[in-house]
């Protein structure tokens, strides 16, 4: 058992979860006769070994930062926003549609318009769940899951039946957007070996700073956290729980929507019909959980996930190991985060501040020793 301060422990838990997740992946690969060392080394070299890889890794991290921030805001308020995929998808389709429909607007108007509209679309989708939760107490877990499917099918319908055929290549793909509404920056892509890295990453960094500032430095952030920590106490202190529930879901969905926007205006430059919930939604959730809901944690976690995902593609082509191992590793990491209580048993807090802490420590210790027997 290691003696560590509470702060070190907070950092050690995710690190151990990551290592354990990689080990699970390695064991599965060994069982099926793949070489984990070849797998992981080809993963890291293809994600970080050249400029194109680095550019793609950053590009992959961009939407995850947004969706993770979205998840973290709702979760500070005590909500599990599992509707990130739908909110991101709404943002993606909306922003692309606006750019396609107004190709002649100047870039200074069109790009911000599309970005804001995409964020709003995500906010509205999440806001429905927030409103229902605030007004009727309806579980946001169920409503956001249901909204994911409603958005999925509605977007298919809008794409195939409603959108003007002038904006589409075929029923499942839109035309490529004009440079006026694009987040692409040619010199930046060139710099990173012609990768699809785009201005979205700057927006994402701004979003992380806003998130940090909002949650740590503003009254709004304080109220959101207070409602999350104890809705009854915060109501007693004169805060409107309803307002804060709705506000946190609107913000959460807004960021998730922006995740979809950078996917559309940055990475793909178009929208195409989705047949399942967007990956960036689920990954954003994982990133936020791994990052512990903090700004810096989200940045680091999103980079790790992107290395896994971009590197995983390389691993598949170079080493011939199925890409799915990456998602298994990610799921395993989240599993270890979920059972961090057990990981925490490996450490002891350095200084016990109150009798209560000592007591719980000794309890933890006795469980831990029992486990060793």
């Amino acid at each position, binding site marked *: 058992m290691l003696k560590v301060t509470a702060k070190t422990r907070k950092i050690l838990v995710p690190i151990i979860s990551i290592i354990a997740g990689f080990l699970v992946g390695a064991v599965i690969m060994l069982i099926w006769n793949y070489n984990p060392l070849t797998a992981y080394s080809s993963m890291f070299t293809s994600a970080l070994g050249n400029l194109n890889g680095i550019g793609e890794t950053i590009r992959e991290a961009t939407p995850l930062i947004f969706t993770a921030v979205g998840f973290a805001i709702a979760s500070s308020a005590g909500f599990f926003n599992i509707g990130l995929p739908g909110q991101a998808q709404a943002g993606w389709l909306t922003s692309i549609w606006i750019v396609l429909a107004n190709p002649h607007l100047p870039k200074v108007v069109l790009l911000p318009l599309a970005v804001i509209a995409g964020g709003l679309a995500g906010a509205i989708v999440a806001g429905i769940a927030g409103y*229902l939760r605030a007004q009727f107490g309806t579980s946001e877990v169920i409503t956001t899951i249901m909204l994911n499917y409603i958005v999925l099918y509605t977007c298919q319908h809008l794409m195939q039946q409603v959108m003007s055929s002038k904006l589409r290549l075929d029923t499942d793909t839109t035309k490529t957007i004009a440079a006026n509404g694009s987040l692409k920056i040619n010199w930046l892509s060139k710099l990173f070996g012609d990768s699809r890295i785009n201005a979205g990453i700057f927006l994402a960094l701004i979003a992380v700073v806003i998130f940090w500032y909002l949650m740590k430095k503003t009254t709004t952030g304080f109220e959101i956290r207070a409602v999350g920590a104890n809705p009854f106490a915060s109501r007693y202190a004169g805060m409107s729980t309803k307002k804060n529930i709705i506000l946190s879901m609107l913000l959460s969905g807004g960021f998730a929507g922006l995740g979809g926007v950078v996917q559309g205006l940055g990475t793909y430059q178009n929208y195409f019909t989705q047949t399942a919930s967007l990956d960036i939604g689920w990954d954003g959730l994982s990133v936020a959980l791994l990052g512990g809901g903090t700004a810096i944690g989200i940045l680091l976690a999103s980079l790790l996930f992107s290395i896994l995902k971009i590197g995983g593609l390389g691993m598949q082509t170079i080493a011939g190991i199925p890409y799915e191992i990456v*998602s298994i590793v990610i799921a395993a990491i989240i599993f270890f985060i979920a059972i961090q209580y057990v990981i925490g048993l490996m450490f002891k807090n350095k200084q016990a501040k109150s009798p209560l802490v000592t007591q719980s420590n000794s309890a933890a210790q006795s469980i831990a020793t029992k486990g060793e027997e």
Partner: protein
Amino acid sequence: MSFVAILALLVSSTLVYSAPLIFTALGGAYSENSGVTNIGLEGIMTIGAFAAIVFNLTCASTLGKATPWLGALIGGIVGLIFSLLHAVATINFHADHIISGTVLNLMAPPLGVFLIKAMYDKGQTENITQSFGYFSFPGLADIPIIGPILFKSTSAPAWVAILVAIVLWWVLYKTRFGLRLRACGENPQAADTLGVNVYGMRYAGVLISGFLGGIGGGVFAEAIAGNFSVSTIVGQGFMALAAVIFGKWNPIGAMLASLFFGFAQSISIIGNQLPFFNHIPAVYMQIAPYVITIIVLVFFFGKSVAPAADGENYIKSK
């Protein structure tokens, strides 16, 4: 199309689409009644579908007609093993139920596809040769009007599922085991005081949900999908979860809700063959079950009526 033929088509496709939802939702109801929220039903179904299809492909030539049934059973067993992850995490390791359940959903599709790739060297399996197909009850199918509607070319797994729902309702509300299980979901402290093994009961709840969810996934794969790929199970598990809530955490309620969702799903698929429904844009039929779930939750339930300690960890003190 005659009126009877239309009704027969509607009933049979409703039953086909309901069967996997009923099994899975029954599992969900048991898990939640024991006090463990199980949002991982989707993942459990996926792994069940995977196991059932692999079994079916491997054994169809030797087992013949019995293959899909045994396949569903294998799906159930693999689902049960998979759900152990959720049980250990939530019951012993104090994990947040929603996060742990999400792990099942994150884990199952890549694991299934990875294993398929490792075994068959491709991303999805061949189509199975022995699927559930349609079943006619001997004798009952000959009853005029009712026979062709309910008992001719119908879905056998659905009738089994309905039977299982009735049995599970009886177990939950009329037996000592059911009472103890519910006690653990309502007030684990009190149950513990009275000598009920809360951890054991919760394990039972989660493992039953794994078994039934796996069967549900197996039935879906062998009756509807016909093969296994990453998109075999897309949302059926979440739909089953909605059915649990829609059905007020009661097995019969969950079964009826599943029948309704099965009806809504089948309408969106066979709608273009039906009068009246063929004028409604497909999108409304597709989103109907989800919209209705939300509306029902909002207007008919107000605040949630889940078992009181559902989703809460119970930590036994010394």
